């Protein structure tokens, strides 16, 4: 029962990661490419980490509980730090003077 939940969470996380990878490849502009890089990677890693923490609680012991708490700590850190890093990149792009893409232009 627990294994099925773990597998479903892993597959949903992989779907999110696939969307992020395809979005980074195919969006036309620097600013629009940041959108999948910021959101989908955070969500995918959150789901996959929750699945792995859940699998780690399979045979309950104190050491496994500590490892599970560390994985949750990584989730919290990624959830805070990944949007912050993306916001730093956006700030650098705005200060470097990139113009946003509008409809009908060539992709760059």
């Amino acid at each position, binding site marked *: 029962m627990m294994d099925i939940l773990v597998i479903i969470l892993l597959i949903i996380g992989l779907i999110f990661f*696939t969307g992020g990878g395809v979005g*980074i490849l195919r969006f036309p502009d*620097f600013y629009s490419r940041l959108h999948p890089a910021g959101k989908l990677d955070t969500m995918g*890693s959150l789901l996959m980490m929750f699945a792995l923490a859940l699998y780690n609680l399979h045979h309950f012991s104190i050491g496994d509980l500590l490892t599970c708490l*560390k994985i949750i700590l990584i989730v919290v850190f*990624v959830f805070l*730090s990944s949007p912050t890093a993306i916001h730093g990149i956006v700030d650098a*792009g705005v200060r*470097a003077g990139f113009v946003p893409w509008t409809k009908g232009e060539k992709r760059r």
Partner: protein
Amino acid sequence: MDNIFLYCGLFLSLLMILSLYRAIFGPTVLDRLIGVNAIGSKTVVLLILIGLIYQRVDMFVDIALAYAMLNFIAVLAASRYFQKRKGL
């Protein structure tokens, strides 16, 4: 269950190759930075998967935590460094 973790790791490696295209051929420097950031955030998950495959997850989880911090600091420092350049 081990086979599922192995296939998930292989699929994540494939997605990392997909992001590596943007890191190599990106038109601007900040595009390359996006690719490197995406690879780093996939690596954190891949490290814990490797730990579960080899049954040493208590060791690999510390490495993953250190890698997540290193990825964050590296991207932030690089984007601050390229801040004032015109026409990257």
